[in-house]
C-alpha cells in the first residue's frame, strides 16, 4: 500500500468512526473531574456580575420581587437549579419579599425544591415568600398578572386563598414590584413587553445556557439589569456570593467537556480537509 492511499485510508476510517467511541471517551473525561475535582478558576462574566450588583445595591429589606418561572424538569438539575437557588438565596439574604409564580406546569414542584435548598433565615411563608402556583397562558398570563394580580391569582399553590396571605395584601399590579425576573428557556421578550416597557420595572433573567445569545442584545441595550444563565451562570453567582454550591461543584466537568468538544471539532475539520484534498488528488 502506498503512503498516499494509507493516508486516505486513515482519514476515511476516522471520518467513519463510530460516534459511540467519541461519547465513551467523553463520558470517561467527565467522570474524572467529578470524582477528583481539579479546582479550575472561574471567570465571572459581566451579565452575572451586573445582576448580582443590582440585587446587592438596589434590593433591600421589604422590597417585593416577582419571580416568574417557565422552567422544565429536564433542564432543572443543571440549567436552572444552580442559578435560581443562588439568586433566591441572595434575595433572601437581602430581606426581599419573594413572589414565585409560573406558567410552566412543573415549576411549583421545582419552587418547593428551591425552598428546601436555601437558608431562609427568619423568613415566613405567606409573609416573606409565597408560591402562587401554575397558570396557563404564557405571555397572556404574565400580562394579566401585571394589570391585576387578583384577576389571575385566587389561591396559592397549596390552595390557601390569597386574601389570607399577608404579603399578598401589598400587591395589586406590576407597579408594586421593585424587580421582576423571568426564569426561562422560552421567549425572553415577554418580560420586557409586559413589565419593562409598560410599567418601567427593573427586569432580569435567569435562563438556560442556550438563552445567552438571545438575552445579550437586551443586556447590551440596558433593557435588563443582567442575567444568570445555566450551570456556568450559577457557578459565577456562587463565586460572587462566596457560597460554593451545585454550580461550582460541576464546573470542572463542564470545562473538560467543553474543551474536549472544541478539540474534537478542530480535529474533525482537519481530518475532513485532509480527506477532501486526498480525494481531489485522485
Amino acid at each position, binding site marked *: 500500500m502506498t503512503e498516499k492511499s494509507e493516508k486516505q485510508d486513515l482519514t476515511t476510517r476516522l471520518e467513519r468512526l463510530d460516534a459511540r467511541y467519541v461519547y465513551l471517551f467523553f463520558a470517561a473525561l467527565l467522570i474524572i473531574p467529578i470524582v477528583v475535582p481539579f479546582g479550575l478558576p472561574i471567570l465571572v462574566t459581566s451579565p452575572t456580575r451586573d445582576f448580582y450588583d443590582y440585587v446587592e445595591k438596589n434590593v433591600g429589606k421589604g422590597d417585593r420581587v416577582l419571580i416568574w418561572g417557565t422552567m422544565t424538569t429536564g433542564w432543572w438539575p443543571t440549567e436552572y437549579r444552580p442559578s435560581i437557588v443562588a439568586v433566591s438565596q441572595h434575595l433572601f439574604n437581602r430581606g426581599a419579599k419573594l413572589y414565585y409564580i409560573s406558567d410552566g406546569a*412543573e415549576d411549583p414542584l421545582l419552587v418547593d425544591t428551591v425552598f428546601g435548598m436555601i437558608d431562609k433565615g427568619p423568613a415566613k411563608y405567606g409573609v416573606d415568600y409565597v408560591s402562587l402556583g401554575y397558570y396557563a397562558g404564557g405571555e397572556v398570563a404574565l*400580562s394579566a398578572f401585571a394589570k391585576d394580580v387578583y384577576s389571575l391569582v385566587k389561591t396559592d399553590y397549596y390552595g390557601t386563598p390569597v386574601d389570607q396571605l399577608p404579603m399578598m395584601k401589598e400587591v395589586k399590579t406590576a407597579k408594586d414590584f421593585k424587580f421582576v425576573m423571568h426564569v426561562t428557556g422560552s421567549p425572553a421578550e415577554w418580560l420586557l413587553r409586559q413589565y419593562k416597557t409598560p410599567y418601567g420595572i427593573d427586569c432580569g433573567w435567569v435562563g438556560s*445556557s442556550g438563552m445567552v445569545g438571545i438575552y445579550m442584545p437586551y443586556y447590551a441595550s*440596558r433593557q435588563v439589569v443582567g442575567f444568570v444563565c445555566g450551570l456556568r451562570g450559577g457557578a459565577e453567582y456562587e463565586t460572587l456570593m462566596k457560597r460554593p454550591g451545585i454550580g461550582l461543584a460541576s464546573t470542572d466537568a463542564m470545562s473538560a*467537556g467543553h474543551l474536549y468538544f472544541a478539540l474534537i471539532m478542530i480535529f474533525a475539520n482537519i481530518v475532513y480537509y485532509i480527506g477532501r484534498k486526498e480525494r481531489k488528488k485522485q
Partner: protein
Amino acid sequence: MISTDVAIWIQAALILMWLSQLYKQNIFYRFTEYTFIGVAVGHSTVLVYKNVVSMVYTPIVFKADFLLIIPVILGLLIWTRLSPKYGWVSRWPMAVIVGVSAAIAVRGAIKTQIYDQIIATIQLGVVRPDILSNVNNFLIVVTAICTLTYFVYFKEHKGALGTAAKIGRITMMATFGNTIAWAFAGRLNPLIALLQTLLLDWLHLR
C-alpha cells in the same frame, strides 16, 4: 460506601436505563421515556384540574360570574378538532387565542424589540474615553449595518453592498455559532448532573 437510600437507587436505575439508549434502542430506555411522559402528563392534568376548579367552576357556581361561560365554551370547542366533520369549528377558539396573544405581544414589541434596540445602537456611536469600548461599539455598529444590508433584495449584492452583505453574513454565522455553542453547553450540563447522581449520590465515590 454505596447509598442505602431507596430513592437514590430508583434514580440511579432510571438513569442507567435511560443511558442504555446510547448503545441502542431497548425496552429499558423506552420504559424510562414512557414513565417520564406519564408522570409529566399526570402532574399537568392535576394542576390544570385545580386551575379549572379555582378559576372557572368556583366563580361560576358560587359567585355567579357567568361571563366565564364564554371562555369555557371556546375551550370546549377546541375538542371539535377530534371530529373530521366539525373540526373546522376549532378554528374559532384558536383564532381568539392567536388574536389575543398577538395583540398583547404587539403592544410592547415595537418599543422593546425595535425602538429601544435602534436607540441603543445609535448611542454606541458616542465616543467614550475608554478605547476598547470605542472599538467594541464601532464593531457593533458596523456589523449591525452590514447584517441589515444582507437583507437588501432590491439591489444586486455587488461592490460595496456586496462586501457589506458578506460581512453581514459572517456576523450572522458567528452569532449562530455562539448560540449553538451555548445550546451545546445546555445539553452537556444535564449529563453532568446525571453522572453526579450516579458517582456521588449513589456510589459515593467522593
